[in-house]
């Protein structure tokens, strides 16, 4: 198993390298440059040239990239020219905020999705099943940024139960309770679509398993219905559901971009959007590198977990 993990990790390295080259080239190809973005109306050719020189952007592209790579090996991702601080500090801070949000959302959608799916399957065609199916369908169909705004309107503006934005209270805040309070609405919004997907899949997988012979055998042996459902059927259905949760982890990370913007969550998605529009190359590079590495790790984790759960794959 560890040899497999090591091989997968090694295979990821050229992928990440290729990615940094592509990002570097794309950023170089799109029109506009950081100096023009910074100077705005005052971007005379003379001013732009001087600022590019001060920013070290007058060097050939290959040289810029090699400098970046050389620094990368020393753990230095450069300095952001729009934020005037080390890229590494910003990216790590932002990414941990995204992980908190996406992680919570993932836990939330897994729990809710699995519960809803199992109940739906066990009570197939009952009104509970129909209600769950309807709610799930609505959940999958709602655009999440719109849902986020709606939740802010109801729970933050009108009821004032939850804050409208941010990660901690601006005044006298801090601590896990404050974080949880700020986390609730964005994490819920982010979890809705994935919950729907997981619920529907769990339902199908459970129905499939419940029709199997060994379930009939278990029932015939006199095993209690609860034990049949949770010990026999649910565990078998999980094997199908886990990889989907792994894929959903990717979607949740991606979806975090909108949700972070709507809830002003200081995560890496909103950072990347801004960094691209201000042509902050180093910040884009650093951000993409971290996000891509996370994707690789998540996929690997999902694969490993599936192997652990399903003896046939070993």
């Amino acid at each position: 198993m560890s040899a497999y993990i090591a091989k997968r990790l090694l295979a990821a390295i050229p992928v990440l390298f290729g990615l940094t080259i592509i990002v570097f080239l794309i950023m170089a190809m799109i029109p506009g440059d950081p100096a023009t973005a910074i100077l705005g109306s005052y971007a005379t050719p003379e001013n732009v040239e001087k600022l590019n020189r001060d920013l070290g952007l007058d060097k050939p592209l290959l040289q810029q990239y090699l400098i970046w790579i050389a620094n990368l090996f020393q753990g230095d991702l450069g300095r952001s020219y729009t934020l005037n601080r080390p890229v590494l500090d910003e990216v790590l801070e932002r990414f941990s905020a995204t992980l908190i949000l996406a992680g919570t959302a993932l836990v939330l959608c897994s729990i809710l999705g699995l519960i809803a799916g199992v109940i739906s399957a066990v009570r197939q065609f009952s009104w509970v099943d129909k209600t769950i199916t309807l709610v799930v369908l609505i959940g999958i169909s709602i655009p999440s940024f719109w849902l986020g705004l709606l939740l802010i309107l109801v729970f933050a503006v009108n009821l004032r139960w939850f804050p409208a934005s941010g990660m901690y209270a601006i005044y006298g805040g801090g601590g896990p309770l404050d974080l949880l309070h700020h986390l609730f609405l964005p994490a819920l919004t982010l979890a809705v679509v994935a919950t729907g997907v997981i619920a529907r899949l769990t339902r199908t997988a459970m129905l499939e398993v419940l029709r199997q012979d060994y379930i009939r055998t278990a029932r015939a042996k006199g095993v209690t219905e609860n034990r049949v459902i949770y010990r026999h059927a649910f565990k078998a259905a999980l094997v199908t559901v886990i990889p989907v949760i792994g894929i959903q982890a990717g979607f949740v990370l991606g979806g975090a971009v909108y949700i972070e913007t709507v809830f002003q969550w200081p995560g890496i998605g909103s950072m990347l959007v801004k960094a691209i529009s201000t042509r902050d190359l180093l910040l884009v590079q650093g951000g993409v590198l971290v996000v891509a590495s996370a994707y690789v790790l998540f996929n690997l984790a999902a694969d490993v977990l599936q192997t652990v759960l399903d003896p046939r794959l070993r």
Partner: protein
Amino acid sequence: MKRLLAAAATVLSLAFASPTHAQTPPNVLVVGQIAEPKSLDPHAVTAVNDFRILMNVYDGLVRYKNGTLEVEPALAESWTISDDGTVYTFKLREGVSFHDGAPLNAEAVKFNFERMLKEDHPFHDTGPFPLAFFFSTVDTVTAIDDLTVEFKLKEPYAPFLSNLAYPTGLIVSPKAVEEHGADFGRNPSGTGAYKFAEWEANAKVVVTRNEDYWDGAPELEAVIYRPITDANTRIAEMLSGGLDIMVEVPPDSLQQFRSDEAFEVQEQAGPHVWFLILNAKEGPFATKEIRQAANYAVNKTTLVDNILQGTAEVAAGPTPPAFAWAYDEDLEPYPYDPDKARELLKEAGYDGEEITFYVTEGGSGMLDPIAMGTAIQADLEAVGMKVKIETYEWNTYLGLVNPGLEGKADMAEMAWMTNDPDTLPFLTLRTEAWPDKGGFNSGYYSNPKVDELLEAARRATDQDERAKLYREMQSIVQEDAPWVFVANWKQNAVIKASVEDFKLQPSFFLMLQNVAKPE
């Protein structure tokens, strides 16, 4: 499963039970900013968003008088200007210290300008300083004695004082720069009414009352600036009580705040002009009558009232009325007169040639460029002009427009916000400012009389004399119509009713020195 449910229920109840912090505490002002500041080093930044913090942490030698764009003494008590307009001597206020305890003296002022301007200065590498060219006419800065500092200019430059009042002219503590180097922008120290206290990245910047402020300590204990990039989220935060002041309110939401007694809406016209650059070198707009026809054809009142929903006023000429001292009050905007436009087009022999119109998707000061561009297209087509729109993202757009429209387009949207009546016409209307000479005259307008007036205004040291020259320039430019003059933007802000003595400034800076919020 039951345990899972119980855990989920606990988490939920904890989240609900946590106290809401929606209300802001008394004597602390929470300001909704549109973005995270780049740096709190005033010489390193260019965005108004950053200036809104900086103007309260630092002072300049001079500042804008409350409610105007005229300069008055600040860190300098008084000054003299040599007759030829090239030597400015400032007498500094006595007994002023930076927040870090270092004294404000002539050497400190010299350090500030040399750091920006001299490439061999030991702290020049703490930049870059993108707007340092505001002071490019400065030749030498000399500390005559402890409290007297002299600026020698390479040539007379009348906007010098006004540039000193701009954030790029704010005075930073040399001691703090020496201590923090390139990280000074995150450890700022000035002489202003508020001291820097804390910067939590992507969450808040906190500044606290400077008890020793030379102009009287402010009433507020602290100001907290929160970056909230999404306009809808900013509005939600304001409505839910998490902000005391928010700026740049989208027009759609103003009415909602106006009709709510808990809020007050303020508006203030600023030194902003939104216009269409016309290509006077080639194509139809090379003819003056056709340029005038475009001015008559565009219904500016509808644009500002409907598309911009009253957040701007109709512009009459190249100089915004916010520069009250230099503005020609007698200038009337081109009226909306499609018949007159048709007549002019016919006289000039316009043959229906297609007009390429550059429109941007957004950008600083551009308001609602796509909607405005479409409306302008419709107005021009209504008088028989054929207009083809090409839309570009802002950075791409600047890369196309700034080098000049020749061979590419006949007309382009543009907006400027400046701090002196000199800047815009000097950079965009002179013959010497054509793009190939490093200026922004992308439409190649040229009138020797205008060139002469602008040069003279720059050399004049007397404000009344300058004002006369600018007024004459405005009426000539209006008649020549190198642009379609469209709108002057009004800045707006929503404040909580409990906030006292807040006033928006024509400079668009947020001045919080005298604001109070007792409850």
